[in-house]
């Protein structure tokens, strides 16, 4: 078991004929993900990476029975692709695309939510259930099946922590990159309940950063609703206020969205926060023993 995706999840790729889309489709297929089709408007009927291409998400869902879609469409066309997914019977949309205008994400998020489609991202590495299903751009080889769940706003920082979890033998149940934008489809608090309910997850690592209040809200949720241990890491202790640190969502606006303020609130709620990456595993092990 795992959350959201497993070895039977049927996946389609939006933007499969693009450069990034085709490259990562092949990587996902090699990992064992059940890629059953792709979508590129105007290219329906063609074949890409050995799977059929459709003109719309709904056509692809009807023909293949896919329940998840992963999107590699360029930012300027991302809103159209997301609305296409909202007009289908897909259940889960993972938006990898970086740099989508915020109001486009907002409109698409509202349409997806109205249809009950869960959105992961945008501007995220995707999610992976090691050994079963990889949807996104993360390097598969650093993961290992295990019992630690991971939710992160970052990409490569997540890989660092995953590698530590893998190297120490713990491994991961499911790892989710939720994205670095101000508006994201799934936040920590939306996903923690799934890990809490997952019989194959023993503990959760929460990787946050400066900007917004999502980590603090997650801490409140943890305190009142969760029994499983959660361990944190917060990037951006040295980030100057008012400057956007790469991610559109990573900007210190007030005194309560700094890394220091978040660490304080997480620890007050009972979530220990590692100050350096190698301490994450130590804190997880301590919680498990």
């Amino acid at each position: 078991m795992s959350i959201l995706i497993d070895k039977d999840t049927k996946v389609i790729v939006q933007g499969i004929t693009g450069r990034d889309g085709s490259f990562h489709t092949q990587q996902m297929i090699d990992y064992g993900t059940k890629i059953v089709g792709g979508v590129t408007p105007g290219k329906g009927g063609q074949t890409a990476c050995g799977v059929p291409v459709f003109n719309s998400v709904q056509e692809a869902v009807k023909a293949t029975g896919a329940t998840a879609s992963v999107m590699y469409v360029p930012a300027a066309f991302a809103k159209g692709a997301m609305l296409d997914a909202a007009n289908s019977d897909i259940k889960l949309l993972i938006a990898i695309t970086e740099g989508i205008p915020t109001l486009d994400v907002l409109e698409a998020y509202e349409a997806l939510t109205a249809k009950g489609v869960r959105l992961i991202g945008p501007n995220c590495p995707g999610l992976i259930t090691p050994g079963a299903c990889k949807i996104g751009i993360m390097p598969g080889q650093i993961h290992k099946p295990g019992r630690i769940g991971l939710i992160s706003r970052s990409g490569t920082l997540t890989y660092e922590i995953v590698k530590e979890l893998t190297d120490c033998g713990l491994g991961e149940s499911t790892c989710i990159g939720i994205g670095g934008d101000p508006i994201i489809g799934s936040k920590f608090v939306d996903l923690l309940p799934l890990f809490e309910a997952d019989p194959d997850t023993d503990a959760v690592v929460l990787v946050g950063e400066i900007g917004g209040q999502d980590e603090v809200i997650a801490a409140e949720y943890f305190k009142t609703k969760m029994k499983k241990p959660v361990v944190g890491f917060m990037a951006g202790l040295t980030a100057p206020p008012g400057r956007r640190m790469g991610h559109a969502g990573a900007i210190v606006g007030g005194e309560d969205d700094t890394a220091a303020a978040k660490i304080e609130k997480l620890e007050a709620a009972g979530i220990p926060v590692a100050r350096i990456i190698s301490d994450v595993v130590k804190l997880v092990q301590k919680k498990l023993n």
Partner: protein
Amino acid sequence: MKIHEYQGKELFRQYGIPTPPGEAVKTAADAVRAAKSMGLPVVLKAQVHVGGRGKAGGVKVVTKEADVEATAKKILDLVIKDLPVRRLLVTPAANITKEVYLSILIDRGARKAVFIGCSEGGVEIEVTAKESPEKILRLEVPATKLGNGTAADYKDFASKLFSDADQASQAAVIMAKMAKLFVEKDCALVEINPLIVDDKGKVVALDAKVLLDDNALFRHEDLVSMRDMDSEDADELSAKEKGLSFIRLEGSIGCMVNGAGLAMATMDTIKHFGGEPANFLDVGGSSNPKKVVEAFKLILKDPEVKVILINIFGGITRCDDIARGILQSLEEFDVKVPIVVRLIGTNEKEGRALLEGTKLTPATTLEEGATTAAKLGGKA
């Protein structure tokens, strides 16, 4: 992207949001000319990309023509929160009978576009929000309604800000126009503080703060040209053009990292081990060796840099491409400072093989790299 008040007011005029006339000037002489043509009294307002201008002495009412030049000079000589004042907005002084706060922004928590209002304007809204949150009004607007709402949609909200029916209906019209501006120009914030009622009963935007969504600038050429090059760091801008994300800091350890979160964590780790990062630099998710060369160029420009730490976790980024970029940079630049390199992930073996025999200091983990960099002259 930030734009100045005078530019925000230009957008207001485009959208029919009432705002006083005004002229942006760069010299005291021009301020005098503008003031004469408008008639006294005028307000001189420093145009800088920071809040708290008034408290810093950057906003002055001038009643006598003879005082305009001296006051303008004084403001143009100011440096407000590190930013020198290069422009003044000259605008007629208004007779204020009431002031409120009104803005529209994206509430990331609620994942909604939302109007924020407060019947006590002109003050710092953050303070009011903290001390008396019950005074802050909110109205969520669905994304698809932003561009086509009418005054009727905002009447109830406006009535809570203005007890006078006529003023409330003027404000409702303004809100519909603000929402249209907000969505059509891809704003992150449109703030009017204060929105006033003048002595003729007219509702007028006395200030304009507009923030634009960087992600959407590709479809707004007209807005990009509003960028004030004087108040931006040239290196940071040129980095952006080359697909790098760069912010200069005060320390001595130059950093080159792939990914924003990891770049922040790298800075934090350096500090944890006693060093001070000289910059934030995310080379992004591409493997282009040219980006590495550009990154070197930016880091080496800073004379404070005593050591460089390269931390790459290959995913989409391939370590061998990064290594090629490093080799190219070593050929192109005369690098006198030590370089600590940590390459891991996709094609790490190939990457390390390429760097064998160079004078670079290898590191296996980020923590080892940060410690080494701090030791090699990067100590604070």
